[in-house]
């Protein structure tokens, strides 16, 4: 049976890194901002190539029991599995399901996807979920995007920046944002989220 990597590296305490103090962390929770790690997941990048990217997308997602999003910059979600259409020929697929993960790894290990390429990136990405009615304020603090309802509706996904870190930002549901980024940025991103929490709580207090 395929074993998923842990969501966060050994010995990494999310709350410890995140919270400037327990009081601030609780304060952020009370106003509707919770930062947590996403479930342990397998991740892959699928490139559709120059020929018929859609045919490659369809074939591979069908093998995984997933669906291609309706258009570019959209994401389909099935439980803890996400298919994100990031560029003309690029899909980013994550799955917290061990059976799907095993298939993903097998496809990548085979090395050849006719017309395209699939690469297992499970070991180098990690993810955070920001939930709550004010979750967007954490994203807004460092992402340069228009995050209004029209510009960033539920189901949207894009690669962008969070401060200096390249992230894949998605919005699986109204009050849930998900960031995926390189593991080496974990400390930086988490501490930054903590600092943003602190600022939001302080500004709220100051009225």
């Amino acid at each position, binding site marked *: 049976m395929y074993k998923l990597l842990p969501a966060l590296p050994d010995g990494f305490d999310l709350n410890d890194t995140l919270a400037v103090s327990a009081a601030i962390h609780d304060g952020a929770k009370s106003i509707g901002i919770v930062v947590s790690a996403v479930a342990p997941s397998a991740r892959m990048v699928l490139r559709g190539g120059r020929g018929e990217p859609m045919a490659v997308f369809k074939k591979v997602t069908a093998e995984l029991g997933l669906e291609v999003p309706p258009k*570019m*910059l959209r994401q389909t979600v099935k439980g803890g599995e996400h298919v994100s259409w*990031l*560029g*003309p020929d*690029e899909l980013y697929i994550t799955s917290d399901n061990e059976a799907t993960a095993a298939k993903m790894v097998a496809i990548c290990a085979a090395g050849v996807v006719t017309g395209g390429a699939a690469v297992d990136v499970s070991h180098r990405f990690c993810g955070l979920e920001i939930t709550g009615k004010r979750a967007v304020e954490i994203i807004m603090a460092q992402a*340069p*995007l228009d995050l209004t309802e029209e510009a960033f509706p539920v189901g949207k996904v*894009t*690669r*962008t*920046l969070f401060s200096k870190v*390249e992230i894949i930002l998605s919005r699986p549901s109204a009050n849930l944002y998900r960031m995926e980024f390189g593991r080496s940025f974990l400390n930086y991103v988490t501490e930054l989220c903590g600092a943003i929490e602190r600022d939001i709580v302080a500004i709220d207090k100051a009225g």
Partner: protein
Amino acid sequence: MLLISCPYCQETRPEIEFRNSGEAWLVRPRDPSTLNDEQWGDFLYGRSNTKGWLGERWRHVHGCGRFFNAIRHTVTDQIIMVSPSGTPRPSDSELQKLIAARESEMQAWHSGEIGFGGSAPGHDSKPSSAKTTK
């Protein structure tokens, strides 16, 4: 900060997501070995260094990752056109039309005919929707 439209994402995004990749529509010599040093050096390093409208390649590096063409004014930083990689350079007359259209749009904007309700000219895919009368 510039707002740049990506022809692949079909969205206007902040400059920080992009990277300028130099002059566009440079033609790589078909058979480099037939060139003399001066011609090869010119291909490698000779650039037009235009003051005015310049065809450039940009890359949406922190987005879809694609290279594309843009025509930017090197003094005002206005971008009048973007096109997917591989699209030929617009002809001079097409370019003049684009410039004229932008100029009249800018005039309307400065005179207040186009309000701030939408975006500045060139940053709205349907600028007519942002028009309000004074």
